[in-house]
């Protein structure tokens, strides 16, 4: 286990023990709630993790590099951002997926665009959002999110 993960384990465990001492019932109830939510997406987590293996086997690093390797390709970035808009996977598993692409040689620019639109822009949840907040709000919020996702990605490509 790397230092980073270890540190978080320690901090979280200390907090957890403190929490149990302070209010056992409240702590246990919250843990049950979050495991309930986790169970909800467990199938997708397992699916994506095994999908990563398939992707890495059939898309060799050379292919990934060729299509998503250049940090200056605006077209690739927009395509990744669009994929993020229509994909509905928990952000939770998007990170290992994104990590595997970067490790295989993809540039971070399209990957960041994908990560940001995945969570912020929702084509699938558009009808729900429209019902609650109206068409104008929903359209503006989603378009702004899309524009900013691309900008964040491009800026990150320059910084990192």
């Amino acid at each position, binding site marked *: 286990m790397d230092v980073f993960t270890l540190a978080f384990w320690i901090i979280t465990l200390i907090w957890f023990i403190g929490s149990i001492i302070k209010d056992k019932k409240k702590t246990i109830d919250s843990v049950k709630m979050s495991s309930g939510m986790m169970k909800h997406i467990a*199938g997708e987590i397992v699916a994506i993790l095994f999908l990563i293996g398939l992707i890495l086997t059939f898309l060799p690093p050379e292919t990934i590099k060729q299509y998503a390797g250049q940090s200056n390709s605006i077209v690739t970035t927009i395509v990744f951002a669009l994929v993020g808009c229509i994909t509905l996977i928990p952000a939770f598993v998007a990170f290992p997926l994104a*990590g595997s692409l970067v490790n295989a040689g993809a540039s971070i620019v399209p990957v960041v665009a994908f990560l940001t639109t995945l969570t912020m822009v929702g084509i699938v949840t558009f009808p729900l959002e429209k019902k609650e907040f109206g068409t104008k709000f929903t359209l503006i919020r989603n378009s702004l999110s899309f524009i900013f996702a691309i900008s964040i990605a491009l800026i990150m490509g320059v910084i990192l």
Partner: protein
Amino acid sequence: MSKVIQFSRRNKLLILVALSYILLSIFMPDKAVQSLKNSLYYIKEMLMIMPVILLLTALITAWVPKKAIEKNLGKDSGIKGSIFSFLLGSFSAGPIYAAFPVCKALLSKGASISNIVILLSTWAVIKVPMLLNEAKFLGPKFMIVRWILTTIAIFIMGYVTSKLVKKEDLPLDDIKENSSVDTLNISSEYCIGCGLCAKIAPEYFKVENKKAKVIKQCIKQDIKQDIKQGEMKIVNEAIEKCPSKAINQNKQVNF
């Protein structure tokens, strides 16, 4: 049999991936082994980080004073309101659509458009437990830079949206005001299936097929007459604690 069908309907992607592996191991066994090996690293890493994230989400739910934060989101809350929206989103749990009813409730309490945009966006992209996961798989530096840029973007988006959209543009609340009988309701599209309500008030709520259901009505009049006041309190607690505010009781809404 129907259980199998239900399971596959809910886990289409999982079935698809499993089928690919089965076909591979028949026709190209070496590729199947290679795929498994490739996945192994990510599965191992995920198993190490998942319990921490689960625990952290639970601790945040238990101890971050959401009520106090929500109180600071009202009208004329200014920059303080924006910061509180940001905090509320950062310490939330669940997908973005779970934030819709929460935002709706805050709007009716006087939260501004820009604060709602800030809350929705923060909820979606930069939740604290997710940052942990991001740092794990893409590196702490990547996470921090993306966090800073996204935070700036979110505040700009809040400002721009508040200039373009006015409160009058939003649809009005469709809560029925006419009923004198308060029936319990769960909007299933927002329920994230956490089962908290069933834990708090098992007599009234039950989780079925990953969604909570009302199994017994809690009618106010009855309560006044013969049922213990405690029952009403328990139901109210369940309504209040629901992380996506998916439970409501007609008219006498809790927010």
